[in-house]
């Protein structure tokens, strides 16, 4: 009986809950993922620079190939954090908390990239660096939420104790994600409405759409690659911290008799 449950457990998701096993799996996957993202980004960049110019926007349309994937990843990064938060709160999965901690700075960086490239694109197209329209404001709010999550993580010195409060904050913030996605459809402001992911198919010309899709895939692979690297770093960091604590306790135990006398 116990043998069968052990057998079953070996193939369930809890198998991945062992950090050592995660390190060995991810160590094997990581080089391939890194190579895949490098390849996709190289092909995507080549396609992006050889793609025809837009009839209205000219050369500046190429900003899109960085801007749109960054914006898409800023939201996906938050969703990765939200799923990990569920993992922390419901299953108490030990790696879910590591995943949130690793994803937050990456997501914040992509959000910043989306905002920065958007403003570089906005200056020649709209004549202004920044407007307070619905999409820009909600993206800015997303950036603030990432910073709030990072601040809360950093404010507590024990990462294990910080796990649940951070997960709760992440889940509460998930409310904003649909608002960002649909902000351009609900409020008709300066930012253009959704063009790629819509029910009646994309409205971009295929010659511009294909480089964009390849770049989006490359960015996504890059995200998961960096996420994996950051998770491994975090696991190692926690091991070092606990080893330091253990050795400090040992040393104290060794010196105690001397102090007592």
């Amino acid at each position, binding site marked *: 009986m116990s043998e069968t449950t052990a057998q079953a457990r070996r193939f369930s998701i809890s198998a991945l809950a062992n950090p050592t096993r995660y390190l060995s799996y991810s160590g094997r996957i990581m080089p391939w993922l890194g190579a895949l993202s490098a390849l996709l980004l190289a092909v995507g960049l080549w396609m992006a620079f050889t793609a025809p110019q837009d009839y209205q926007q000219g050369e500046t349309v190429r900003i899109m190939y960085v801007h749109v994937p960054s914006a898409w990843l800023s939201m996906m990064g938050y969703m990765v954090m939200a799923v990990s938060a569920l993992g922390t*709160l419901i299953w108490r999965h030990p790696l879910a908390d590591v995943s949130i901690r690793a994803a937050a700075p990456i997501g914040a960086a992509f959000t910043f990239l989306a905002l920065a490239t958007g403003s570089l694109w906005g200056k020649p197209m709209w004549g202004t660096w920044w407007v307070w329209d619905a999409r820009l*404001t909600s993206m800015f*709010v*997303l950036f*603030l*939420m990432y*910073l*709030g999550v990072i*601040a*809360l993580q950093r*404010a*507590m010195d024990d990462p294990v*104790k910080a796990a*649940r*409060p951070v997960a*709760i*904050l992440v*889940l*509460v*913030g998930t*409310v*904003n994600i649909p*608002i960002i996605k649909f902000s351009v459809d609900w409020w008709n402001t300066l930012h253009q409405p959704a063009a790629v992911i819509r029910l009646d198919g994309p409205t971009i010309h295929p010659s511009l759409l294909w480089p964009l899709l390849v770049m989006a895939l490359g960015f996504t692979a890059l995200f998961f690659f960096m996420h994996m690297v950051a998770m491994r770093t975090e696991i190692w960091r926690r091991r070092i911290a606990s080893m330091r604590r253990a050795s400090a306790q040992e040393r104290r135990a060794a010196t105690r008799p001397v102090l007592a006398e």
Partner: protein
Amino acid sequence: MTALILRDIRIGVRAGGGMLIGILFFLAVIAVVPFAVGPDLNLLARIGPAILWIGALLASLLGLDRLFQADREDGSLDLMVMAGHDQPLSLTVFAKCVAHWLTTGLPLVVVSPALGLLMNMEPAAILATSLTLLAGTPAVTFIGATGAALAVALPRGGLLVSVMVLPFVIPVLIFGVMAAYGAVEDPAPFTQPFLLLCALTLFFAALGPLAAGAALKAASD
């Protein structure tokens, strides 16, 4: 629940003077604006609703860290968390939020007409702004309770609470100011943003205590 509300109101009114500090801060923000933008009365009247909203928002954020901190220091917060078997913790949090809003949010709403006069606003604009503040400030308290609960274990969590809560209160601010302007300017509607503001308050009244209860439970063990 009523007993808890009454207890918190009594503490809020008597000890510490948190209520007075909130009002004074609100007054200070309003008083600083004319120095910054110049004493042009027409301009002040135009930006008045927005300034009143910003002032009330900052004043409500200021008092948020007091929501659970005092109870944690004297140990009564642990008792409330442990009493979670008899009464859901989110209900306790809800009661504390109501009491907190009655002692810090409601006074801000009450003094807002007087400050509106200082900003040279029309009676209609003053009435509309106070009405939107009345509908909107509870949302700030409810969502702020989540931030306060998350930061309750930290020794100096006050500033962090504001950073965490600010992204969530931005929609409240947007619709509050939109409704206040809608009452004065002709083509802009008043009812639609006002109803959205009420919806936000109801939504956060449900979500905030729930998340705050979970955060308190996580912080206690």
